[in-house]
C-alpha cells in the first residue's frame, strides 16, 4: 500500500530531475542557469514562503484561540455543525468568490459606494493581487481555518481537554494560558500532519495564488505552472528546474516552521516554570478569536452569496449594491459546457473515490483478518506534504513518454494519489475501533468472514464511510493542477474551466462554473448526512419484527 502511493511521487521527482538536468543529453545546468537568470525569482520565492508561512500560522493560531475560547461551551456545537458546508467549497471557488468580494469593483466596494467611499467608478487600487500577497494570505487563511478546526475537533477527544482545563483553572490559570500550556502540546502532536499539509499547500498552491496572488512576479508555483503549460517546449526544462527550486524552497519553509515549533516549546516551558497565570490574556484573545472566526465565516458565506448573485445578475453597473435585474442567461448560454464539465468532474470524482474506498477497505480488512502490519499515517501524508507542483511535471513527462496523458484514466489515477490519503484518514480510526467482539459473536453463529464484513462491519460503518466518500469527492473536485497537467488540456472539469474563465473577465460565466464546482461536493456531503438518517428512519418504521 505505501509503495502504491510512493511510486508516482518518486517517479515524478525523478522525472523532474531528469528533465531539469537534461540527463537524456548527458546532463547540464542550462535549465538551472535559465531559472537563476529570471529576474523575478527572488521576489517569487519570498512571496511563496511568506504568504505560505503567514497564512498557516494565522489559521493555526486562530483555530487554537477559537478552540480555547469556545471549548466546553454550547457555541462549539454550532461551530461543529457549520464546518462541513464551509469545507465543501473547493479552493478555487472560494478564491473566486473572495476575488469578486474584495476586488476594487467587487461587492464590498459596491455596497460601500458611493455613500461611504465617494467612488462612482471602481477605484484604481490594488486590493486584489496586491504585490505583498495580502489578499492571497487572507484567502488561504480563510480557506484553511475550517479544515484545521475540523481536524482539531477530531483530535480533541484524545486530549483529555476538559479535565486538563478544569485542573489548570483550579490552579488559577486563565483559559487561554491553561489551554496553551496543558492541552496544545498533546493536541499539536495530533495536528502536526494536517498542519504540514496546510503549510505545503499554502506555500505551493496554484489555484488560489492565480486568482488572489500578485502577478508581477507571481508566486513561484504559479510561474512554474505557466512555464509548464507554455506551448513553447523549451520552457519544459525550465519548469522542471523551477519545480526543484520549489521543492528546495518548501524544505526551507518547513525548516523555518520547525524552528518556530521549537521556539514555541521553549517559550511554553519558560512560562510553565515561572508559573505565569496570564489571566489578563483571556479578554483580548477572546475578542481576537471572535473577530477572526466571524470574519472568516462572513467571508466564506459572502463569497458563496456573491458567486450566486453574479451568476444570475443582469446589468450590474458599478456602484449598485445589487444587480438591476436577475437573469438566467449565463446559465442557459453555458448549459452545454456546464453539463459536459459536470459530467467529467463527477465521473472522475466518483471513480477516484470509489477506487480509494476499495483500496482502503481492502488494506484495513487485511490488517484485521491476516494481521498485516498497520499502515503508518506518515506514508499517507507524503502526497499531501510534498508539493504537487514538484512531482506532477515529472509524472507528466513520464506519461508523455508513454503517450498516456489526456485520458480520463490517467487523470483519475493522479487524483487517486490525493484522494486516497483523505479517505484513509477518515475511515481508518472508525474501522479499527469497531468492536471486534461483534465479529466473534457472528462467527460463533456461523457467519463467514465475508458475510461479517458485508452484513455487519460495512453497515455499521456506513456513516464514516459516507463522510469519507464525501471528503474524497471534495478533494477530487478541487484538484486543479493534476487535472490541467495530466489531462493535457483535453480533460475539462468544472475546476479547470472556472480557472480558465477567471482570467477572461466574464464574471457571470465564471461564477456559474465556480458555483457548480461547489455544488458537487456539497451534494456529496448532504448525501453523507442524509442517507444514514433516512436508513435509521426506515429501520424504525419497519421495527415490528
Amino acid at each position: 500500500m505505501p509503495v502504491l502511493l510512493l511510486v508516482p511521487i518518486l517517479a515524478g521527482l525523478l522525472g523532474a530531475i531528469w528533465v531539469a538536468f537534461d540527463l537524456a543529453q548527458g546532463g547540464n545546468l542550462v535549465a538551472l542557469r535559465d531559472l537563476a537568470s529570471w529576474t523575478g525569482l527572488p521576489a517569487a520565492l519570498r512571496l511563496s514562503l511568506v504568504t505560505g508561512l503567514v497564512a498557516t500560522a494565522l489559521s493555526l493560531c486562530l483555530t487554537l484561540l477559537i478552540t480555547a475560547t469556545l471549548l466546553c461551551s454550547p457555541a462549539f456545537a454550532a461551530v461543529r455543525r457549520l464546518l462541513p458546508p464551509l469545507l465543501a467549497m473547493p479552493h478555487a471557488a472560494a478564491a473566486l468568490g473572495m476575488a469578486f468580494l474584495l476586488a476594487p469593483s467587487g461587492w464590498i466596494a459596491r455596497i460601500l459606494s458611493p455613500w461611504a467611499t465617494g467612488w462612482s467608478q471602481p477605484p484604481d487600487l490594488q486590493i486584489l493581487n496586491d504585490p505583498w500577497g495580502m489578499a492571497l494570505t487572507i484567502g488561504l487563511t480563510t480557506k484553511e481555518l475550517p479544515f484545521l478546526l475540523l481536524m482539531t475537533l477530531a483530535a480533541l477527544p484524545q486530549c483529555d481537554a476538559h479535565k486538563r482545563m478544569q485542573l489548570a483553572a483550579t490552579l488559577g490559570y486563565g483559559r487561554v494560558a491553561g489551554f496553551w500550556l496543558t492541552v496544545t502540546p498533546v493536541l499539536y502532536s495530533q495536528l502536526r500532519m494536517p498542519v504540514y499539509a496546510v503549510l505545503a499547500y499554502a506555500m505551493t498552491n496554484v489555484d488560489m495564488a492565480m486568482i488572489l496572488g500578485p502577478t508581477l512576479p507571481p508566486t513561484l508555483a504559479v510561474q512554474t505552472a505557466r512555464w509548464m503549460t507554455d506551448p513553447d517546449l523549451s520552457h519544459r526544462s525550465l519548469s522542471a528546474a523551477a519545480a526543484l527550486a520549489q521543492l528546495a524552497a518548501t524544505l526551507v519553509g518547513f525548516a523555518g516552521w520547525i524552528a518556530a515549533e521549537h521556539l514555541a516549546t521553549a517559550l511554553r516551558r519558560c512560562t510553565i516554570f515561572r508559573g505565569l497565570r496570564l489571566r489578563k490574556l483571556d479578554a483580548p484573545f477572546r475578542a481576537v478569536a471572535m473577530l477572526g472566526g466571524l470574519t472568516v465565516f462572513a467571508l466564506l458565506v459572502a463569497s458563496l452569496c456573491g458567486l450566486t448573485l453574479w451568476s444570475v445578475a443582469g446589468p450590474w453597473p458599478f456602484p449598485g449594491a445589487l444587480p438591476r435585474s436577475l437573469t438566467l442567461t449565463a446559465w442557459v448560454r453555458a448549459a452545454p459546457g456546464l453539463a459536459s464539465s459536470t459530467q467529467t468532474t463527477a465521473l472522475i470524482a466518483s471513480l477516484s473515490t470509489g477506487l480509494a474506498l476499495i483500496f482502503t477497505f481492502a488494506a484495513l480488512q487485511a490488517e484485521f483478518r491476516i494481521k498485516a502490519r498497520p499502515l503508518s499515517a506518515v506514508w499517507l501524508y507524503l502526497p499531501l506534504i510534498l508539493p504537487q507542483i514538484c512531482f506532477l511535471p515529472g509524472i507528466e513527462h513520464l506519461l508523455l513518454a508513454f503517450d498516456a496523458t489526456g485520458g480520463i484514466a490517467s487523470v483519475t489515477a493522479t487524483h487517486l494519489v490525493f484522494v486516497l490519503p483523505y479517505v484513509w484518514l477518515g475511515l481508518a480510526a472508525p474501522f479499527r475501533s469497531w468492536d471486534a467482539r461483534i465479529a466473534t459473536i457472528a462467527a460463533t453463529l456461523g457467519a463467514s468472514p465475508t458475510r461479517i464484513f458485508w452484513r455487519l462491519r460495512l453497515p455499521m460503518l456506513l456513516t464514516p464511510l459516507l463522510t469519507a466518500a464525501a471528503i474524497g469527492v471534495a478533494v477530487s473536485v478541487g484538484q486543479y493542477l493534476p487535472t490541467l497537467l495530466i489531462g493535457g488540456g483535453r480533460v475539462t472539469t468544472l475546476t479547470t474551466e472556472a480557472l480558465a474563465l477567471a482570467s477572461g473577465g466574464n464574471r457571470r460565466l465564471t461564477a456559474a462554473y465556480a458555483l457548480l464546482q461547489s455544488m458537487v461536493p456539497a451534494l456529496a456531503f448532504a448525501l453523507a448526512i442524509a442517507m444514514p438518517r433516512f436508513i435509521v428512519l426506515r429501520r424504525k418504521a419497519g421495527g415490528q419484527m
Partner: protein
Amino acid sequence: MKKGLHIIDLKVKLHGHTIVALSTTVEPGEVLTIMGPSGSGKSTLLAALTGTLDPAFALTGRIILDDADISKRPPQARQIGLLFQDDLLFPHMTVGENLAFALPATVRPRALRLTRIEQALFGMDLDGFGRRNPATLSGGQRSRVALARCLISDPKALLLDEPFSRLDADLRDQIRNLTFNHAKARDLPVLLVTHDPADAVAAGGRILSPLGQNVRI
C-alpha cells in the same frame, strides 16, 4: 465568619429536579465525606464548588472560603485544590515542571522556585525526581506527584474526587493517609467525594449525601 469552607444553602437544580442540597461547614483540618452512588450528584457538587458547573444547571446559595464569598468567582480565583481519580499529570512536562506549573508565579526568583519544588518533592519522599518523565513513575509515585502538585499551589481548601479508587488496596491506604495527614498539617478543610465506604471510614469524619442527609455505614 471564621476560617473553613462554609457551604450555605447550596442548591443545584436541573430541569426543576434538586440534585444537590447542602448547608454545612467544613472546619480547617476536617474531612467531610460526600457519599452516594454514581449519578447521585457528587460530581455536580464538585463542579459547583470549583465553579465549573454547566450553565444548564441552576445554582443558588453561597460558598464562603476563609471569610471570602467565592460563589461568584471564576474557577481561577477560588483557590480550591482539586484531586481527580486519574492523577492527570501532564505527560509533556517533567515532574518538576508539573509542580512549577502549579506553584504561584509570585514565588520568585528562579532559585526560590527550584527550592520550593525540591522541598515539595522531599515531603512526598520523591527527592531527586524533578527531572523524571511522569511516564516512568509507578502508580504510587504518580499519586504522590499529583498530591504535591495540588498542595504546592497553596490552596485554601481541598476537593478530592474519588482520588484513591484507581489504586491497589495496600497503596490506597498509604496514599489516603498521606493525603489526609498533609491536609491536616496545613489545616485545610477537605471535602472527599466517594462511593467507597472504606474511604469514608478512613476519613473518620461526618458522612453526608449530596442532598445533605446523614449517611450511615
